[in-house]
């Protein structure tokens, strides 16, 4: 994380916190409406980060731009929802996880290993093929209706902090729980990457494939592991998104929501995926509420991309991405 980017992020969030605290200090009783909007945006942003996280993990470790992440989210959610009809939640979760791990192993075996050393765009196209296959396979095996996924997430919005502000603050509890899950997941991933031997090996692979291989780190096994972790992230994202929107084909399109997030945060940075998600979620919500009417609505489809594009014009490698150094 470069110093400028860190300072910018700090300044950004300090501003938000200051905005939230200022009514208490100056004695105004109402929680400002724009902050309520911003809070909703931030919570949605966390959900985008969940998908973006899977993309970043794989790109870091294997240099593959994994377009199949969205399809993996759909596949995981579909598998879970259909298994839950037959067995209790905990068993279904474990079984789905096992299936995702098997999938990771198959992808490494059948797609990545034969394509080793190919150009990035060829690998990207291969993951598009995998995405097509998974979309078809998931629906052929598990059916293509809309399923409701109920894992006990609270559904109703709730008004909190009524004591502090007049009228309280309206928060979508489902988003809040999801944000909590996301935070726990990120903390777990951080621990895994920083403290375990496997995590260290993964970071070595991410830094330099050849150097990692020359000190005896088995590349193929690392790829299976990182795709398994991405499968786990996909499962979590599938649970969260699935219980929010229902498990259906459009779930595989959440990848398109995650792309501007990784672009803005940088393809190689896990904190970038989080901060990027927050900024995109915030920008999208604020634009929807305050700019949407002027444009005639429906701008959320492209606004995130344009926002990310503007950031990229100033930092072409994203906020926290590795600095791109050109050498001849």
């Amino acid at each position, binding site marked *: 994380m470069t110093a400028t980017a860190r300072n910018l992020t700090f300044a950004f969030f300090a501003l938000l916190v200051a905005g939230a605290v200022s009514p208490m200090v100056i004695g105004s009783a109402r929680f400002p409406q724009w902050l309520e909007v911003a809070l909703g945006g931030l919570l949605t942003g966390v959900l985008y980060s969940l998908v973006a996280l899977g993309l970043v993990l794989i790109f870091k470790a294997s240099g593959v731009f994994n377009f199949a992440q969205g399809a993996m989210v759909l596949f995981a959610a579909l598998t879970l929802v259909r298994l839950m009809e037959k067995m209790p939640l905990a068993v279904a979760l474990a079984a789905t996880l096992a299936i995702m791990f098997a999938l990771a192993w198959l992808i490494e075996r059948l797609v990545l290993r034969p394509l080793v050393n190919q150009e990035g765009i060829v690998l990207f196209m*291969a993951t*598009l093929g995998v995405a097509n296959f998974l979309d078809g396979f998931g629906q052929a095996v598990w059916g293509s209706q809309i399923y409701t996924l109920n894992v006990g997430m609270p559904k109703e919005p709730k008004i909190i902090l009524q004591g502090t502000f007049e009228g309280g603050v309206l928060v979508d509890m489902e988003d809040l729980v999801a944000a909590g899950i996301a935070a726990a997941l990120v903390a777990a991933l951080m621990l895994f990457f920083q403290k375990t031997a496997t995590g260290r090996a993964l970071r070595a692979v991410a830094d330099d494939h050849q150097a990692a291989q020359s000190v005896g780190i088995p590349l193929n096994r690392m790829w299976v592991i990182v795709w398994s972790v991405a499968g786990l992230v996909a499962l979590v994202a599938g649970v969260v998104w699935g219980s929010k929107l229902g498990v259906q084909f459009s779930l595989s399109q959440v990848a398109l929501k995650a792309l501007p997030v990784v672009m803005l945060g940088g393809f190689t940075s896990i904190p970038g995926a989080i901060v990027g998600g927050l900024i995109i979620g915030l920008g999208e919500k604020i634009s929807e509420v305050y700019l949407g009417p002027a444009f005639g609505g429906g701008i959320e489809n492209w606004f995130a991309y344009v926002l990310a594009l503007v950031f990229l014009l100033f930092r072409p490698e994203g906020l926290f991405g590795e600095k791109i150094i050109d050498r001849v």
Partner: protein
Amino acid sequence: MIYRETGQFKTTYASDQQLFPILQDRVFVIAFLVFAFGVMPFIASEYMFRAILVPFLILSLAALGLNILVGYCGQVSLGTGGFMAVGAYAAYNFAVRVPDLNLLVVFILAGACATLVGVLFGVPSLRIKGFYLAVATLAAQFFIDWLFARVKWFTNDSSSGSVSAPPLAMFGHPIESPAQKYLFVLAIVVVFALIARNLTRGAVGRAWMATRDMDVAAEVIGIRPLTAKLSAFAVSSFFVGVSGALWAFVYLGSWEPLAFDVNRSFQLLFMVIIGGLGSILGSFLGAAFIVILPLALNQLPTKLGIGLSTAMISHIELMVFGSLIVFFLIVEPRGLARLWAIAKEKLRLWPFPH
């Protein structure tokens, strides 16, 4: 034995630099064109024209345009569907608002509009590279989708959002029958393929390829990245815009913005990669593959007599399509055009192994 250049001496620069330096290639290409123009219109069925030949030719043109950008200049774009939409709606507006305009002029103006938009969205390529650029071009795609769906002026205030092309005519002759449409599209595609071929083997094409191989090195030897990248975006968008206009006017007839959504962009990128990056022939092979494959997959279960629900067929179609993409990438990452080149190389040596 049959295919080799032994005995074909080049005595002038012109003969050395001609389009197809080997006699057999020339004969083959001319025979193929004679067949496509003179024989095909009489032997193909109406279904063949409608479902295979016309879409194949139009998408080849779009793939050709995309190949100039991705294959020759190395700028990955996922906004092709959007640029096709610009061509289609520009052609529609010119045709509706200026009624007596010649159809060819309409198409060229449509291409020009797409060029403007393409260059505009190509500007970030000067700063953003690789996958970042690919994702950035998605901004173009989604913005253009939204624009044509929301701004009523572009659709001439049509209430449903879908628009219809006026009847096609050239110099007073109506273009109505499938065979006429086929010949019209074929003529345009041949001209554009010739232009692409000549552009890519000239100074412009060399500048593009140098930029693709390493843009910093290209800059060092005196190629301006600004002109190289933006000219690639301009030429590519022109091709794509014309193909979008053709797709709307000749193939669809009436359409809505959904016809040019992000899946079209991915489909075209598939064509370029499966066909072969940086190859004119590859654009055609890739387009043929992607157009014919779903049709074949769709009809296969019925032909084999397996009763499947339509939903199941579409799921299996997705699966087979996905696996075939991966399979082809593994077998030949450089595309079908590379297989063709290997075959020619082998033929030159045949019957000797080396």
